[in-house]
């Protein structure tokens, strides 16, 4: 079962105001210079719209550009230098009126750039948002990414220079893609999926073993695994299909055929109901 949510259409339908409901659009640009910070705890809250994460320019702690209806939303921009805490984003003033005239221009947007080279504990909490995020240029110590009803494309395009303690990805009703998870350099990865299609691409620079707990309530889980990676999967499924080709079952665990010879290993705990688990072996150098 493949659930491909037309996120753009959905967002436009959800948030485009009718002609009679004219919006008061506000654009906001904010930036801050690096000033000797040694680490940063970043909390991003974004209630609805399009969200983009990109690297900030050299010397910038953050750069944020957003567009929103000032009658419905309130920007969040708080920085506490003493505690090294940065809060950014957009929250609603209350009940958000939704209309559907298909006007894509009225969808709120947030483009966020975060400092490169600065150790980050990053928490991103999105509502009904279409997200496109590249964490590859960041130095992540911890990452928690939570999204509601949305489409999310996450990329770890370059290796994280730091050893990441934990990576937690939570998706509600969503189409969720995470590419280059090995570049995150996290020992533990946790993925919580509600309803939808989840694709986890474990390609990238492997620097050690990784444990991943994946829970998907309803939908399809697609795992893209480098062909030279040793994989052990413990399955807990209910009415969820699983293609066992390329695996040998020992006890409750499915081991990839190259488990004993692989340089790097991934241990997966997969829990899924009502859907399917698809394994795709990919070229590790792609």
């Amino acid at each position, binding site marked *: 079962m493949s659930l491909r949510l037309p996120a753009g259409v959905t967002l436009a339908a959800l948030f485009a105001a009718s002609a009679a409901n004219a919006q008061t659009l506000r654009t906001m640009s904010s930036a801050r210079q690096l000033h000797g910070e040694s680490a940063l705890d970043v909390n991003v809250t974004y209630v609805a719209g399009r969200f983009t994460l990109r690297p900030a320019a050299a010397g910038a702690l953050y750069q944020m550009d957003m567009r929103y209806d000032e009658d419905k939303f309130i920007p969040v921009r708080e920085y506490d230098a003493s505690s090294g805490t940065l809060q950014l984003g957009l929250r609603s003033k209350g009940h958000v009126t939704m209309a559907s005239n298909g006007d894509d221009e009225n969808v709120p947007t947030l483009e966020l750039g975060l400092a490169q080279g600065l150790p980050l504990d990053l928490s991103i909490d999105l509502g009904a948002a279409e997200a496109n995020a590249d964490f590859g240029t960041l130095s992540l110590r911890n990452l928690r990414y939570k999204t509601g009803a949305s489409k999310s494309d996450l990329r770890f395009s370059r290796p994280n220079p730091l050893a990441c303690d934990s990576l937690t990805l939570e998706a509600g009703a969503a189409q969720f893609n995470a590419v280059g998870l090995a570049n995150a350099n996290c020992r533990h990865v946790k993925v919580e999926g509600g*309803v939808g299609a989840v694709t986890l691409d474990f390609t990238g620079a*492997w620097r050690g073993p990784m444990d991943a707990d994946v829970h998907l309530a309803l939908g399809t889980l697609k795992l893209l695994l480098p062909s030279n990676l040793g994989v*052990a999967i413990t399955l807990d499924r209910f009415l969820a299909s699983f293609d066992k080709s390329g695996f040998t079952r020992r006890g409750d665990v499915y081991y990839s055929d190259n488990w004993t010879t692989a340089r790097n290993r991934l241990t997966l705990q997969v829990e899924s109901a009502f859907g399917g688990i698809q394994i795709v072996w990919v070229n590790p150098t792609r």
Partner: protein
Amino acid sequence: MRSPTRSSLLALALALGTAGPAVAEPADGLTDAATKIVEGVRYLERVLHIRQGGAQVLSHTISISSREAMLEMDLSSGGSRVVDLKGGNLFLDGQLVAQYTPGGALEHSWRRLLADAGSLDTPQMVAAVRAWKVDGLTGGDLAARQRIAGAFETLTAAATVPPVPARAVAPAESSAPAADSALPAIPAPALAPVAAAPAAPSDIQVLFHGVKNVVAMFVALAMIGFGTVFFARRYLEVVADTASQSFGRSLVVGVLGQLLLFPTLAMLIVGLIFTIVGILLLPFAILAFVIAAAVAALGGYLAVAHAVGETVSRRRMANGAFVRSPNAYGYLFTGLVGLLGPWAVVALFGWAGPVVYVLTAAAFVATWLAMTVGFGAVLLSRAGLRDAFTGRHLGDQSGEYLWATPPATPAARPGRRE
């Protein structure tokens, strides 16, 4: 904040700074010394935050809407400088300081400045606002322009201080184990500790255990069945008549219903997913569907038990036998005895070796058959609401045998003897 220290430093810096050029020609070394002193003073000013009006800008925020155009700068002193043009009023740090012509040259230029500066970093932003000029202003616009210029006159951008480079982890090539290094073997499945094998149960124990299970099952089904008869006798009898009068149809519909059960659930789930409200209802819908299916299967099984009991009782009465309770409760009791009979046989002959597997299979098939027919009858009769499949005639039985066994449904009433 004016302190003696600051005044002294400023005086010294001013004196040296102004005297520097005058004495530069006769003695270059002295000039260098003065420059160093000035730089030192400025460093102290920066560290002690005592530089007069020379606040440093750490961050900036530009906010533009049809209502206002605002620039906010966070300063190293902890304060901020906010310039806001809103509805013809110029606010400086929240205070109304001047007025301008809405939509005039000043506002137009200010908005253009902010719009163009959206992509600039803070130092570039500071430079841009300090270099901002508007020609041809008069009156209030000119006064407002001068207040804005004054607000930024002493501001400078803070120097960028990069973070201390974090200790990077070793690259993949060095941290990964060598290809020929020994890798841990696949962990063997954990085995439970071997306990002493319990003694094999005796045949009596097997018999007792089996009979106990059957009796418990009978009691449970009888209690549920009696409750069903008490509260929903009419519907139970319609389903039972449907099962007995349309056995083949009920069987086919029951099999199809079982096959379509999960696809229907899947369609229900997918359908709900594509509606916003439906997603919220999803857990309840799944729960309701499962409960409905279970109730239909159990109710159908009880209805078949009722039908079996009724058929047996009628035949016994037709043969002249005395039936103590020719009513729905009696039918249900009799039917359950019949349907659980195969399981009782399994329990009684559990000691008999491999034959028990044949008996178990037969009991399982009989139970599945009863449940499938009952499930189909539930579907055909719409849970007892529709009596179209209950049969229009009573067959070969004449009315004289039916005086004590009134048929359940109106369709069978023509044969009833008043």
